[in-house]
């Protein structure tokens, strides 16, 4: 029958397309990984471990003679030490987490337990809208509003009160730096962590919370001692999710980070650069390097960042999924 033959071909076409499409994520991941790893090989040979221990990032004399070092060609005087960027990435994302985690957990608790009906939907929507703001808008706001405030009020204020604590003293400068980056990143990851934690908290059976209330525990004690332990693994996952996002974030930290080169942050207000920001910032100059070593170095930076973010995401996924399965708590017929 003609219809049967036609539909058979359609089906073959469908299956073929579906197979190609479904293979795409894997192929893409493998391809990207292959490109950054292959791209970084010359840089790995050129710099060795000094790539992650060195602080000097110098493209060398791009118009001078090309020297050979470790069997690979690079411009004279070139040095690619990414420690500054590694520290910038870890420090700014750590500050973001320190701010974002408590805020997110408390917001999530309000969303999950304290409000209901239209108000709950409205507040949840607002939090999710925050996640939809383009990162360049956060960056612009950071430059125009946040950094001046950090430079004039917040920074000097912290330095005045907590100046005796290491890293918290010192001049706040323009405000463009570590603290502003951490704050902007915190704002960007709060919606992500909040939404994940809210969903986790809503999975906690009301029965357990009432068990806590029934013993005379306060709302905070029930959250702290009953609900959060139940969702503990998922909570770690949600934090890792936010962390991965904070490390990979590019535009906003490029705009408010202060673009540090060749110097480690001395205090909370020092300018920094993150790995992602440096890749975006330096690619243009790197492309003028005739030996291509600068591009290889950026590729190595990308590989390092990819490893960090994929690892945190993977851990996050594993932990979040594990809680999803274990919230039907064993031994209790709910």
């Amino acid at each position, binding site marked *: 029958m003609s219809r049967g033959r036609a539909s058979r071909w359609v089906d073959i076409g469908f299956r073929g397309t579906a197979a190609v499409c479904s293979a795409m994520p894997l192929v893409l991941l493998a391809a990207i990984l292959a490109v950054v790893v292959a791209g970084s090989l010359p840089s790995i040979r050129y710099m060795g471990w000094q790539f992650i221990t060195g602080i000097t990032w110098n493209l060398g004399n791009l118009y001078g003679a090309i020297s050979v070092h470790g069997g690979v060609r690079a411009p004279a005087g070139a040095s690619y030490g990414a420690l500054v960027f590694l520290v910038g990435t870890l420090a700014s994302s750590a500050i973001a987490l320190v701010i974002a985690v408590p805020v997110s957990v408390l917001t999530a608790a309000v969303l999950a337990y*304290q*409000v*209901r*009906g239209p108000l709950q939907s409205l507040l949840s929507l607002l939090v999710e809208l925050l996640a939809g703001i383009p990162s360049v808008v956060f960056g612009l706001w950071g430059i125009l509003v946040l950094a001046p405030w950090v430079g004039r009020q917040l920074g000097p204020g912290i330095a005045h009160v907590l100046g005796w604590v290491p890293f918290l003293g010192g001049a706040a400068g323009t405000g463009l730096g570590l603290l502003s980056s951490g704050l902007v990143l915190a704002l960007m990851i709060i919606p992500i962590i909040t939404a994940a934690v809210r969903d986790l908290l809503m999975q906690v*059976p009301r*029965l*357990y*919370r*009432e*068990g*806590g*209330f*029934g*013993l*005379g*525990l*306060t709302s905070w*004690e029930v959250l702290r*001692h*009953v609900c959060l*332990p*139940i969702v*503990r693994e998922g909570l770690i996952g949600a934090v890792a999710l936010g962390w991965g996002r904070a490390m990979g974030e590019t535009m906003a930290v490029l705009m408010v980070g202060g673009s540090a080169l060749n110097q480690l942050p001395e205090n909370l207000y020092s300018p920094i650069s993150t790995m992602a920001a440096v890749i975006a910032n330096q690619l243009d100059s790197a492309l003028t390097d005739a030996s291509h070593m600068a591009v290889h170095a950026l590729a190595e930076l990308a590989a390092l960042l990819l490893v960090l973010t994929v690892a945190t995401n993977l851990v996050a996924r594993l932990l979040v999924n594990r809680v999803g399965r274990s919230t039907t*708590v*064993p*031994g*209790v*017929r*709910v």
Partner: protein
Amino acid sequence: MGKSISVAGLSAWYGDQQTLQSIDIELKANTATAVIGPSGCGKSTFVRCLNRLHETVPGARMEGRIELEEGDLCRMHPVDVRRIVGMVFQKPNPFPTLSVFDNIALALRLSGVRRRSELAERVERSLRMAALWDEVKDRLRHPATALSGGQQQRLCIARALAVEPEVLLMDEPASALDPVSTLRIEELIRELKSRYTIVIVTHNLQQAIRVADRTAFFLNGELIEFGDTSEVFEHPRDRRTEDYISGRFG
């Protein structure tokens, strides 16, 4: 020692729906009072008002007076109320992340008991009162969820007793348990009522007869009849009580 509770004009709502209609009732000290009635009659809401748990449900509210020796429960801080009026729930709900020991010790620690020896002593005393000590004394550090359903429920009773309440509310405490565990819980209630004022919601009329000195019959949010258990079951004054206990509805 248990204390008596005197309830006056207690009404409760979920959103716009009124689930309790101006209840007046006197719950005597050191007696077990059974609260019976068909599903949705407000009996659970009633006991949940007595420890102010009702109002933790978003949209729920209550009004009226619940007088204890300490004063009107409705005017006290709910956290203080729940220290005086303990509760055991329909389904065993030990904290799933905590050990047997910590399930009981948590509330004690949070109320300021710090010394290990005192904690251990009070945990043991509570477990003994809940007739669970002998079964779990070698498993105190095991997760509470590893216990059987009946043991979990007795753990929840021990947990409630540990904070030394004067009133113990039980919302169908045996409905999720097998017959043997149910009998153990009932035995326990008969023992505990010499020391506590007990209010037990039950679907099981035989259970009310077995454990309760007094019985209250609720229907559509109203208290229809309240008296000695034997009176209520043998000579009900209200036709609706008679219909319910003789199995004509509910």
